[in-house]
């Protein structure tokens, strides 16, 4: 992977955009979809929520929703991974709303919130990187997950986030800069 101007990420191995690859135009079986994309969706949700248990539940919910609307999925309109991420994003936003309501009710969430020292965002990540990731906002972690971990191209990631491709690049750039800053702070 190389990162070009304005922080745009592209894959060297693919000359064609991911959405135009011939293999993506055929509708895969749902079991194949699960096998191929479950890890990606789970990682995306872990980064977005910062909570593995919640990510697990949300991933299950995402695939349940995808299963219900699987017959309406049109591979020509987008790659399955981006489609699943859009569903996951919607489910995660609902979860965040519910969490916000819960926090307001309990009013003790922030006080009791522990420092994220356990492994959430990766298996074997350095503590500095883990802590730096935990200090990013969900929106920042989300764009990192989509562009870095899931390797979605700019337009596909922008569609998942519901923003323009330019805004998506800007958000990625700021997120990575902030990640670097947080890591520097952690080292200091």
């Amino acid at each position, binding site marked *: 992977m190389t990162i070009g101007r304005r922080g745009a990420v592209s894959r060297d191995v693919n000359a064609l955009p991911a959405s135009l690859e011939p293999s993506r135009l055929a509708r895969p079986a749902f079991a194949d979809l699960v096998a191929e994309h479950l890890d990606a969706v789970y990682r995306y949700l872990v980064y*977005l929520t910062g909570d593995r248990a919640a990510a*697990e539940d949300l991933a299950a919910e995402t695939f349940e929703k995808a299963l219900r609307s699987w*017959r309406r999925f049109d591979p020509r309109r987008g790659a399955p991974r981006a489609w699943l991420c859009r569903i996951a994003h919607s489910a995660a936003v609902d979860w965040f709303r519910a969490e916000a309501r819960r926090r307001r009710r309990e009013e003790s969430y922030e006080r009791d919130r522990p420092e994220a020292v356990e492994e959430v965002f990766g298996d074997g990540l350095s503590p500095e990187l883990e802590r730096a990731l935990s200090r990013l906002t969900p929106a920042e972690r989300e764009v990192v997950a989509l562009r870095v971990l899931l390797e979605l191209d700019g337009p596909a990631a922008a569609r998942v986030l519901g923003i323009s491709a330019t805004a998506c690049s800007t958000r990625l750039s700021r997120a990575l800069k902030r990640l670097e800053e947080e890591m520097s702070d952690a080292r200091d």
Partner: protein
Amino acid sequence: MPATDLERLEPVLAQLRASAPAAPERLRARVLAGGPAPRSRRARGLVLVLAAAALVAVAAAAVHGLSGGGGSGGTRAQRLGLAETATTGTAASDSGAAAKAPAPAMSSMARARLQHVEATLQVQVADADALQRATAQATRVATSLGGWAQSVDYGTQQDGGGDATLDLKVPVEKVDGAVTRLAALGTLLSQQLDQHDLQQQLAAEGARIAQLRRRVAALAKAVADPSLPAGQKVLLRIQLQEARRALAQATNRRKGTKASGATADVSLTLTTNAESGAAAPGPGRFRRGLDFLVVEATVLFYVVVVAAPPALLGLAAWWLGRGRRRRGEATLLSA
């Protein structure tokens, strides 16, 4: 962020990718246990409802077209099927196929109950000479059956064409024969027979007459009473005169009703012009069905026009709500 800075971050990004968490096996099993993809019942239901609505609309148009759609079909059928045949119909909108029979139904019904019968015929003749002969013959037909010609309006044009309109009265029991013979005067373009039941009216008038007769008899008996005071006797005599007058009127009305039921009105139009208004063919079944579909489309258009403003308002509300949701979502994820 400059590319050089990003290159500096590449080890971090590589570490992120390398240590990305994998989905637990229990999650994989949980997702795969979801079962086969169910059919989208809502989408299928919507398609079925739309298809059913379209089918009902087309079926209604087809039924409308086949059933004649308002009475003009009978005229056309008679024009097409009975051009050279003198026939009678059994009702106002009788079809040509039914009219091929001698049509005894109306006659027997008319004989069983008192009914007023009106027949309207349009017959085409070849030219002005034939028109003249047919007009005279029609008058003779009426008189030979015991009726008469109430009015004759005869006119010819310089181009050799012409029309004649005859109002004939014939005994109701002979109206079938009259129609048969009148239709044979030329080419039958159209015919229509209407019958109005007079039996109920006749019974009501009979009851009224009987009531008035009883009243007259009672008043006459009272007036003849010698013990009645003179002043009261005068009042009774006035009432008696009124009752007798009312009785006479009611009796006349009943006579008129009986006369109306005894004679049939036959309106005969003889013409040299095949394209006259009454003879114009009605629209075909396909055309009638098409017209009905146009009416349905017009109604649908009005519904859409009426529903458009609230739909636009709803769309605007949805759009504003979506923007608000997105802003809320951005705030939520940036916290």
